[in-house]
């Protein structure tokens, strides 16, 4: 921009114009998002009824149960490893090339496409371990996917505990591990739990990782009897209903989409409430 050009228009006018434009952009983003999500809630809530939920065949109930199994098992696998890794990063690791490498690895894990996790799960759990398409294989695959989320949330929670608290405990003669277990972890628990809830929400909505590792479509026997049975899961159900199965009433699809979104968003809201509560605490 030339010097003259700069003064042709009053900068304050430019500012007004630019800010107006930004407000406009916000509306351009908000209108389709609110419109579509609103439409989905409207169609979904309209389609949802008790019969559709509890119906044994083609109902939502099996998918809800299946997804619950899947996310619980996922958390059971991811939580100890993820929290362990976070403890290592915040309490044990010394700055240096190794730490740098670990962080780079975690960042990259978070960026691996979900369908690639699905391929890994297929190659490792389904084929190499011979588990076949089952709950355990799907849960382990999803656990890897949410691991970076668990690690970073837990590490942040651990780092917020003031140094003084640790030093006090050490000064009283507690060992490092005792300090971590009795002082640091309990205080970081709300933050860790927030991270776990968020990772549950993420795992509940993922389709690609369970596509070849766990999910199946079944009308007759949807409930797994063991962790080595395949499982009916909500996102996969929605995918199959909207692309593969004939004669599925639109109402069923909308209801499934609605319940899935409600579940995922509900978990996120719970997580943010836990986090807000945590923020109120002052050290």
């Amino acid at each position: 921009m030339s010097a003259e050009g700069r003064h042709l228009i009053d900068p304050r006018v430019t500012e007004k114009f630019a800010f107006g434009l930004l407000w406009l952009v916000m509306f351009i983003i908000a209108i389709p998002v609110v419109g579509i999500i609103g439409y989905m809630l409207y169609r979904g809530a309209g389609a949802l009824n008790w019969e559709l939920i509890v119906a044994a065949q083609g109902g939502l109930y099996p998918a809800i149960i299946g997804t619950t199994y899947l996310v619980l098992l996922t958390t059971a696998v991811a939580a100890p490893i993820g929290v362990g890794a976070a403890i290592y990063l915040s309490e044990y690791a010394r700055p240096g090339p190794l730490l740098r490498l670990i962080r780079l690895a975690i960042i990259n894990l978070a960026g691996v496409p979900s369908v690639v996790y699905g391929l890994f799960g297929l190659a490792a759990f389904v084929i190499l371990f011979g588990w076949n398409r089952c709950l355990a294989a799907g849960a382990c695959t999803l656990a890897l996917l949410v691991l970076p989320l668990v690690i970073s949330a837990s590490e942040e929670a651990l780092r917020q505990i003031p140094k003084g608290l640790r030093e006090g405990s050490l000064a009283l003669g507690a060992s490092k591990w005792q300090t971590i277990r009795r002082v640091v972890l309990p205080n970081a628990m709300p933050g860790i739990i927030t991270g776990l809830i968020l990772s549950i929400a993420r795992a509940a909505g993922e389709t690609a990782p369970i596509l070849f590792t766990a999910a199946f479509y079944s009308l007759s026997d949807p409930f797994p009897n063991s962790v080595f049975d395949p499982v009916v899961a909500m996102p996969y159900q929605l995918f199959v209903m909207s692309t593969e199965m004939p004669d599925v009433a639109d109402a069923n699809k909308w209801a499934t989409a609605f319940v899935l979104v409600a579940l995922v968003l509900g978990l996120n809201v719970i997580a943010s409430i836990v986090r807000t509560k945590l923020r109120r605490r002052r050290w």
Partner: protein
Amino acid sequence: MVKRRATRVGEWIIERLIQLSGMLGIILVVLIFLFLLQNSLPIFKERTLGELVFGQRWSPTHGDGQFGMLPLLLGSLYVTVGALVIAVPLALAASVFVAEIAPRRMREFLKPAIELLAAIPSVVFGFLGLLVVGPWIDAHVEIIKVGQFAALGSVMLAFMALPTIVSICEDAFHNVPREIFNSSLALGATRWQTITRALMPAARSGIIAAILLGLGRAIGETMTVLMVTGNAQVIPKGLLGFLKPIRTMTATIAAEMGEAAYGSTHFHTLFTIGLFLFIITFAINTIADVIVRRGEKDIA
């Protein structure tokens, strides 16, 4: 004494376990790479890398199988670039808005709202694109022949990548020292001038990293593109290619793995696509990380 020793042994074990889980990130990245590689290697006994990457025809069950990935690579490129062209300006505007312009109360509402948008599962975006957005565009836009095309995937992906880009950009704005902002205002610059000439340059590395991470997310997205882009394995040509059906790498894996015979050439080729995806996203994320780190050093 005995008890004390037992405790110590217990602690030693626990600390080793913690150390192990700390290393797990590295171990996992290496394992994922090795598994993909191991399952891809058999294909290279039959085809050369050049035949795979530059082959123009993807038709796995035709003859001995044609595994040219060029249509898929270009398909991913089209959808992703399209998504970024839409998402980046919108996301930049939104992040400036949230960080500097929105009234306090509105900001408190917008930030969680954007996080919630990020949480919506991709299969739901695909569902909405397939059932609502695609047919609507097909009915109202003359030039669109089928309600499943590349640009529709780009639009859906743009909205999915938006929250990622916005929140990282916003963090970057936050990390810019307030003194820069205040001294610019004190020199008589308007807030807009300050935002464009002081704040954005200072947050440059964060913005670039945000775009790269959005790029990584868009390339790897699977279910949405599988459901809305029509999956025709054509080599897209020119700008018109955006309005035609297209097929991405991720959608190919998701659509064909269930039917492919285990251990067949087709099966291994799908793993090769996965390997390429892994390498591409790995490069993008590593570059983003390097840029962020350099930016942090600059500010410090």
